[in-house]
């Protein structure tokens, strides 16, 4: 007989529990989830990322595992423990085992006016939707956040992004009073004020005033006042334990379902996990944990217990590392315990660090980092043990000092998944050769991600030479080769391979070097020795197809084309019997051209004003556009005009991989700009720039990079983004993978491109200017030169004879290759 497992709540912890339970593959259970919210579990930790896209799908956690019945919008309203049934508005559901995972609610302190329109909390996607709608309405100018903790600062950033003048009000004398001490709080405050946020510390809110049209004023306990249009209350959270009393379940001292270290309540059929649980370990008082990692640990414990295991909760690690308004903040261990402390404050760079050691200075108890948290993974893993290096050396900015840090094997490297250094080194010994491999076999790095730098160090230390070598001919990475070529002014492959490599190259290094040379020495790419470096697509300026014919793709900037030009394409296709298809990039692909036909076809296209579309190259492909403000009644900017300008600016730009772009005329995003390497979406005030999106095999939404840019600034930042990518990416690494692998990610990119932290911008700008000036249409240059045309023959000894093995049949009125011989296993080649 099957047993009924009922889960109350479908939040992050419930989702983790369901996955952990399903992973153990238990038989004989019927699993039902009763959820209050109308959407399946989403990533609440990343809730603020909703403001990047206004798309809830970005936070999706993948839905309940197969076989689980998920009933949305069905909150549990009562538990009848005698009959073992729970009630929802729809009726009763029997259980044999009940897991409570109801999370927390935002705590709203009892102040007058907290129920006025325009006062919000910050907990669910709906909260954010309402906050946005209210804040972006006409005339709303000033926003205040009650609470200067983690949540409050996230909410403050949201108000900034919504374009409001932003205030943070904190009762305690410093920001983030739970995580940082006075020194850290002061540094944090300076950072945040630097972003234009007004911080009121040691100041309480005495009441809110306003009327049916919304809140208008905040009164402080010191008599002061502030005119406000929006208020977000982020004054803490309270466990959702309202089911406890009526059901006769015990609560912890500060609320929450009281559970022991197995997460069991006093009723053997009922368990509680996540923020709603008040966990009592080793007979201690019950404590509710407002972080996801302890909740995940509880989910694993209960999944294990229900399938016959014996696991128990240890005291959860409440270490946190966050980026709040672009400032790194980390707190780990017990930073407020008595002991010896080592404090570093650097007013100039805005860095504060404190380590707390036992009195004999041998054991690390905890610490706080503000402004630079790069030492966090190593420090956290050293908690409770000796420091791997002298305290000051460990706090020195990354790269300096270079202290060698040896962690003990039992040190926890990944606290989200309780993975120790030994687990990781075993996995490396067992063949894991990169971070992706470690993620799959140990789960380390798949939670908050903050341990990834440490995983990389362990890989390096484990002798997995994280080989950056391009191929057997070069021990250098693509980026290193780029620098060598640029600094040493290398102009040919032969020079490079004889001085910095070995052998004669291969199909990996040759096209990669050809691409670098195209950037450093722009111009025609097919002359002299460079001709031998290109793969067949670049060599014939066309895309090879499965039957050895090529496709022809003229450039149609922005997807805009006159009827006359459209007719020329049609005539060429008809006259040469080319299969014709409209591409996803808003242009037209003509298939089935033999090598010796390419020059004749292109002569006609060039005569009609077309130029190469570089569909064959690792280069800019297209800049798609929607019709924009010119025609569309929603459009706010001229998206077609911008797309054409951008496509003409970057045409012919060779890169580590293909580059795609799009421009949408308003937030409705009809051009799908967020799936592109660089995407632009028009706003009332200018342009929002998104970077590192990708369609294809591993889709990724582009990240919002900069907002409300003028056209001039937009172009400048795209110039730099592209050139920095071209310089530093690996071979065949799309911008998405490049950004994901970048230390510091989007913030680092912004530092380099906007704040010029590496002093590179002038060079990047100059390089792009050089590209723009040197651009010439490759097809025209080829047609103008008989020597260059000589290669376009099927047979060197019979120039006019077509390849007799190329045969077509007719499908839906067009020529397609006759399938003959073995059919290829995969469909490769550039697209």
């Amino acid at each position: 007989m099957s047993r009924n497992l009922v889960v109350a709540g479908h939040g992050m912890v419930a989702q983790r529990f369901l996955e952990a339970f399903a992973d153990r593959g238990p038989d004989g259970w019927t699993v039902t989830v009763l959820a209050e919210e109308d959407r399946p579990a989403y990533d609440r930790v990343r809730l603020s990322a909703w403001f990047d896209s206004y798309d809830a799908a970005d936070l999706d956690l993948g839905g309940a595992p197969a076989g689980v019945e998920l009933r949305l919008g069905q909150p549990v309203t009562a538990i009848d423990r005698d009959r073992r049934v729970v009630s929802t508005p729809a009726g009763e559901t029997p259980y044999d085992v009940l897991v409570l995972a109801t999370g927390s609610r935002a705590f709203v302190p009892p102040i007058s006016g907290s129920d006025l329109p325009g006062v919000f909390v910050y907990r669910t996607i709906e909260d954010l939707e309402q906050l946005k709608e209210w804040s972006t309405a006409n005339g709303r100018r000033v926003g205040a956040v009650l609470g200067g903790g983690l949540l409050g600062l996230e909410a403050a950033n949201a108000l900034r992004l919504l374009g409001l003048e932003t205030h943070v009000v904190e009762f305690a004398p410093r920001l983030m009073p739970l995580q940082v001490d006075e020194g850290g709080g002061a540094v944090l405050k300076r950072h945040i004020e630097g972003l234009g946020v007004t911080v009121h510390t040691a100041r309480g809110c005495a009441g809110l005033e306003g009327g049916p049209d919304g809140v208008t004023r905040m009164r402080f306990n010191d008599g002061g006042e502030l005119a406000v249009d929006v208020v977000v209350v982020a004054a803490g959270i309270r466990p959702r334990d309202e089911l406890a009393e009526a059901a006769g379940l015990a609560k912890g001292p500060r609320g929450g379902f009281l559970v022991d270290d197995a997460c069991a309540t006093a009723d053997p059929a009922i368990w509680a996990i996540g923020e709603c649980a008040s966990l009592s370990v080793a007979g201690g008082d019950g404590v509710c944990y407002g972080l996801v990692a302890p909740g995940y640990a509880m989910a694993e414990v209960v999944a294990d217990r229900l399938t016959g295991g014996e696991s128990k909760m240890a005291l959860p690690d409440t270490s946190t590392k966050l980026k709040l308004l672009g400032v790194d903040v980390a707190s780990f261990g017990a930073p407020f315990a008595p002991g010896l402390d080592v404090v570093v404050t650097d007013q100039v760079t805005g860095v504060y660090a404190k380590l707390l050691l036992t009195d004999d200075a041998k054991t690390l108890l905890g610490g706080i980092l503000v402004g630079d948290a790069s030492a966090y993974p190593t420090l956290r893993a050293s908690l409770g043990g000796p420091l791997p290096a002298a305290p000051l050396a460990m706090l020195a900015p990354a790269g300096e000092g270079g202290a060698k840090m040896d962690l003990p094997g039992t040190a926890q490297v990944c606290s989200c998944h309780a993975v120790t250094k030994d687990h990781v080194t075993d996995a490396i010994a067992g063949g894991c050769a990169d971070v992706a491999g470690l993620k799959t076999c140990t789960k380390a790095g798949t939670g908050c991600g903050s341990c990834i730098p440490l995983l990389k160090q362990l890989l390096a230390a484990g002798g997995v030479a994280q080989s950056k070598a391009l191929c057997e001919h070069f021990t250098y990475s693509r980026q290193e080769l780029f620098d060598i070529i640029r600094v040493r002014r290398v102009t040919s492959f032969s020079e490079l391979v004889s001085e910095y490599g070995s052998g004669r190259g291969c199909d990996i290094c040759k096209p990669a070097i050809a691409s670098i040379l195209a950037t450093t020495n722009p111009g025609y790419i097919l002359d002299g020795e460079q001709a031998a470096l290109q793969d067949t697509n670049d060599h014939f300026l066309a895309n090879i197809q499965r039957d050895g014919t090529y496709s022809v793709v003229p450039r149609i900037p922005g997807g805009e084309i006159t009827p006359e030009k459209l007719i020329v394409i049609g005539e060429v296709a008809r006259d040469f019997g080319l299969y014709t298809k409209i591409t996803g990039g808003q242009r037209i692909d003509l298939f089935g051209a033999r090598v010796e036909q390419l020059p004749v076809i292109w002569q006609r296209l060039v005569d009609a004003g077309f130029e190469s579309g570089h569909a064959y190259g690792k280069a800019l492909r297209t800049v798609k556009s929607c019709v924009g403000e010119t025609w569309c009644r929603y459009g706010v900017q001229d998206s077609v005009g911008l797309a054409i300008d951008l496509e003409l600016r970057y045409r012919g730009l060779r890169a580590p991989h293909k580059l795609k772009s799009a421009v949408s005329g308003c937030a409705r995003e009809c051009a799908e700009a967020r799936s592109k390497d660089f995407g632009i979406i028009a706003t009332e005030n200018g342009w929002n720039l998104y970077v590192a999106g990708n369609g294809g095999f591993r889709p990724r939404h582009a990240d919002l990079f900069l907002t409300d840019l003028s056209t001039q600034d937009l172009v400048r930042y795209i110039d730099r983004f592209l050139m920095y990518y071209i310089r530093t990416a690996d071979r065949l690494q799309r911008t998405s993978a490049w950004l994901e692998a970048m230390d510091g990610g989007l913030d680092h990119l912004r530092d380099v491109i906007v704040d010029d932290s590496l002093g590179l911008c002038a060079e990047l700008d100059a390089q792009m200017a050089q590209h723009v000036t040197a651009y010439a249409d490759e097809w025209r240059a080829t047609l103008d030169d008989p020597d260059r045309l000589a290669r376009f023959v099927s047979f060197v000894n019979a120039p006019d004879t077509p390849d007799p093995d190329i045969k077509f049949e007719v499908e839906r009125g067009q020529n397609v290759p006759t399938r003959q011989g073995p059919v290829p296993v995969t469909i490769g080649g550039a697209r």
Partner: protein
Amino acid sequence: MTITTSTAYWTTVCAYDRLLPERGVAALVDGVQVAIFRTYDGDLYALGNRDPIGGAQVMSRGIVGDRGGVPTVASPLHKQVYDLRTGECLDLPGVLVPTYPVRCEGGLVEVLVDRL
């Protein structure tokens, strides 16, 4: 390889200068498609032009290089690498393209194709 003298003789294909170092050309020799390559040091190699995996006549358009010192060409369709001396595929053991004798005589490239 066995060459039966009665059915094979040298065919002139093109001037040696017509070949770019480390690039190939295709030639049609009595109905047989041959890919001819000139390596960096000036040596000549000839293979069948048909890619045995993809089936198209494209081997002459691959990138020429070396692997561990062995002169190679990579198929332009799916990038498998072949030994220019023996025609063996270095990535998929057992896959083979035919090889043909090739030489330079008086500035002209000649291949020997076994006609049936």
